């Protein structure tokens, strides 16, 4: 298992970092690099500011995003209220949408002459959004779904007795949550927070688009500028990526410290599947809060995109409604549908392989006494934080060596490399979600099964799959959705004549076809969401489904 992780994630990354030490090693040139680059992060103003900004943004977003995600997940799992399904749809929408699209929506909305100004006359919004605090709020609203999914899947099973006992002793719902539920769910909260943190510090699209307005460079931004300089500085990108990995390692040690000494495997034979109940009062309050949050988190970016996709700037400066952009989608020689099909195939492959790898990684993380567990843990998260372009370049170094040709493994230049890269991208999401849920399945359940003579296969089938079905489905779908729109990796790895959906969208965007890009995003995103919803409906535990109206 460790070998797979190393092959998929560590080796490509190491290849880029090795560039710092031996810049020419992949081209047969053993020359020692300039190690003083490592300290440049404290010397060069751009790098220093980037590091500082990344830390501020990462911490702020993690706090706020986890708060929003966990609160929504708790409410959603516990109570029934009108519009709860809306929350699920929105969360998926936010997970799969590439961040530069979300960012574009926010910029269109909050820019000086943007929609907020035009429609509501909100001048203040501009001066609020384009500040570090505003950026944290926007980031949190875009990244909270990771925390939501991690917590929500962990709430799939519960042991009512624990809460009931507390209630019998006179605890209020708040006290019960604070003293019983919250501590038991700590691993899930941590998993969610880690995901939010990783995805925030590694994100290029959102900070680049939004922050450019007030200049807020982050580490990924500086990594890009190192790669976009000619002669290309792979070594600088390597140094900065190293700092990103360092940040993750730090965050993980904090998590480890928080979770030390405690056990969270509280499921037992009395566990029941969570079923949302109607709240005694406040049903409509929940609904209102839910709708409001969704309207801000998804309504603004997607609404702005939708508006752009159906607007044609009139010659008089006025705007006219039009469906031209959508018509174009289907006229331009199937470029979009071809890209969409390619992306769906790659994402499906990545989700399946990623689920298998991710399952075993989570298993190792949760149950084994394996000495290198911590290492596995860190590696499994790296690919979320390190910008896809860096990993992509690592993939080229590794998979484009001439000798691989002779054994038929020259994967670079073939679609297979995209599947590999997407698996690497999917693993962090899958392992976080699964290990959050697995933490609650006690080892003794497995031991009991084993004593009865159940082999590993039948333990999987009879213990894990039923208990973790929801988490497995969610993890696979999250991986699938995120891979469909994975721009960074595919843009550097796609084989000739093999367009993928995000590449098509990004090119339209760079050609200033904003309307077309928005229309393509919404159409492609709609198709993916529909697929996700159908799969979820098919595979989610039947009982939970039947209880819903």
């Amino acid at each position: 298992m460790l070998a797979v992780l190393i092959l998929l994630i560590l080796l490509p990354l190491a290849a880029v970092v090795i560039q710092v030490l031996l810049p020419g090693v992949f081209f047969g040139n053993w020359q020692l690099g300039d190690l003083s680059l490592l300290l440049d992060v404290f010397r060069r103003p751009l790098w220093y500011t980037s590091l500082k900004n990344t830390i501020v943004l990462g911490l702020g977003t993690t706090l706020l995003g986890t708060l929003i995600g966990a609160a929504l997940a708790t409410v959603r799992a516990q109570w029934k209220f009108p519009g709860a399904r809306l929350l699920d749809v929105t969360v998926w929408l936010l997970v799969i949408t590439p961040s530069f699209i979300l960012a574009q929506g926010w910029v269109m909305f909050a820019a000086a002459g943007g929609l907020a100004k035009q429609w509501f006359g909100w001048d203040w919004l501009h001066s609020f959004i384009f500040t570090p605090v505003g950026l944290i709020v926007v980031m949190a609203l875009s990244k909270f779904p990771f925390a939501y999914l991690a917590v929500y899947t962990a709430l799939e099973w519960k042991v009512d007795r624990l809460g009931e006992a507390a209630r019998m002793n006179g605890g209020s719902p708040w006290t019960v949550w604070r003293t019983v539920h919250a501590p038991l769910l700590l691993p899930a909260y941590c998993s969610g927070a880690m995901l939010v943190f990783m995805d925030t510090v590694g994100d290029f699209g959102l900070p680049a688009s939004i922050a450019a307005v007030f200049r807020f460079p982050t580490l990924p931004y500086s990594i890009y500028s190192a790669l976009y300089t000619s002669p290309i500085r792979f070594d600088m990108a390597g140094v900065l990526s190293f700092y990103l990995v360092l940040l993750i390692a730090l965050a993980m040690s904090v998590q480890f410290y928080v979770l030390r000494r405690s056990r969270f495997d509280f499921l037992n034979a009395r566990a029941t599947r969570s079923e949302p109940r109607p709240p005694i009062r406040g049903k409509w309050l929940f609904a209102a809060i839910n709708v409001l949050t969704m309207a801000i988190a998804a309504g603004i970016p997607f609404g702005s995109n939708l508006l752009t996709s159906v607007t044609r700037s009139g010659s008089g400066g006025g705007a006219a409604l039009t469906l031209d952009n959508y018509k174009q989608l289907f006229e331009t020689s199937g470029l979009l549908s071809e890209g969409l099909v390619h992306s769906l195939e790659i994402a499906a492959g990545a989700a399946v392989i990623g689920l298998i790898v991710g399952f075993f990684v989570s298993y190792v993380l949760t149950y084994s006494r394996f000495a290198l567990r911590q290492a596995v843990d860190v590696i499994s998260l790296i690919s979320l934080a390190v910008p896809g372009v860096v990993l992509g370049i690592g993939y080229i170094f590794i998979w484009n060596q001439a000798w691989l040709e002779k054994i038929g493994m020259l994967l670079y230049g073939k679609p297979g490399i995209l599947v590999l890269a997407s698996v690497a991208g999917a693993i962090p999401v899958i392992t976080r979600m699964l290990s959050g849920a697995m933490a609650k399945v006690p080892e003794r359940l497995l031991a009991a099964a084993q004593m009865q003579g159940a082999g590993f296969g039948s333990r999987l089938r009879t213990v894990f799959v039923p208990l973790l079905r929801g988490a497995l489905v969610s993890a696979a779908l999250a991986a699938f959705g995120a891979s469909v729109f994975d721009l960074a990796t595919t843009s550097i790895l796609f084989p000739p004549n093999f367009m993928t959906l995000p590449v098509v969208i990004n090119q339209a965007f760079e050609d200033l076809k904003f309307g077309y890009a928005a229309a393509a995003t919404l159409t492609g995103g709609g198709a993916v969401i529909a697929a996700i919803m159908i799969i979820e409906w098919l595979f989610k535990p039947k009982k939970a489904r039947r209880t819903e109206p």
Partner: protein
Amino acid sequence: MRSSKWLTTAALLSLTVAATACGNSNDNASNNASASQSPSASASTSPSASAESASPSPSASAPAESASAAPNGNGETLTVYLNDFDDIVKPMFEEQTGYKLNIVSGNGAEIMSRIEAEKGNPHWDVVWMDSMPSIDQLGAKGELLEGWTPDNAANLTDFSKQFVPANQSYYPTGTHAASVIVYNTKSFDEASAPKTWADLADPKFKGAVGMADPAVAAPAYPFVAWFFQSQGMDAGKSYFQSLIKNGIHIYPKNPQVANALTSGEIKAAALQESNAYTLKNSGEPIGIIWPEEGAPGSVRVAAIQKNTQHADAAKAFVNFLLDPKTQQALIDKGDESYFEPSVKGVTAKPDRDPNAKLVVAEAGWAGEHEGEIKQWFADNSVQ
């Protein structure tokens, strides 16, 4: 209909696989005589590789491969890395020559990253991009085919001839303004708008001007580089320092500059030429000014990889790009259609300013100083 498209895709895919496989093993063969048997070995492995990689079944490739044998080009496959015009040159070139084109299209930086990362085992035969300084650097490192003169090079205009380097490692196919001055016509009229590059530092336009970041946007570097080369490093630094002091907004790329301009975030900008005209033609309230001292230009050049296995096809492609008919098609049908053609007998866009004056930083100089200038710019604009 759908299934036929599938078949074509499948055929193209497996062709790609087969072609890259052969190309690379030939490459090995030339480097290492002992590997001379590898072409057949790699050909037999490619179907399994393509099947494994989720592409459609390899059986589709057999009929298509024989069908693709065209008159003079023999269906040989040429791999071209480019950043624009893929939809135009592919059908035109394939029809004219019978060669097949494999295209990798991305933004300039992505393509250069790929080329750099592939250095040990290049997949490309021709690179065709508007990043002359970077390609000049490839030439300086001896990675390009040198000393070849295309027939159509005789057509080059006097303006374009100056860009052909002494070692003939690349040829220009057109020049566009890396930046012209654009302004929002609702905020300024022709009299009050900035007219020279120096005007952008005028306190009148404090906080109202935008430009793309040369560290990220490919066309922004030729723009910045011209100031540094023509005025000297110190004067260049003080010019951009004055812009930064005047509160210039620096966006990652030109599309974001355009967006900021239409949303009212900024009122004037240094914007890439085609982007500027595209905005204007889509009905946005945009005015375009060509400064009298000249707009710094970016030259699109084509170069052939030194060890290419498809030299004839590659030469045919570069010659094709220097054909007036080809350049006219780029102007008539392309997305980045506003540029000054590099050969005679081509008419530029009618609405492009006939007196458009382009000035270009010398490629060798710009290439050598690229890291230094970009780093200076990045570190100073961040404060």
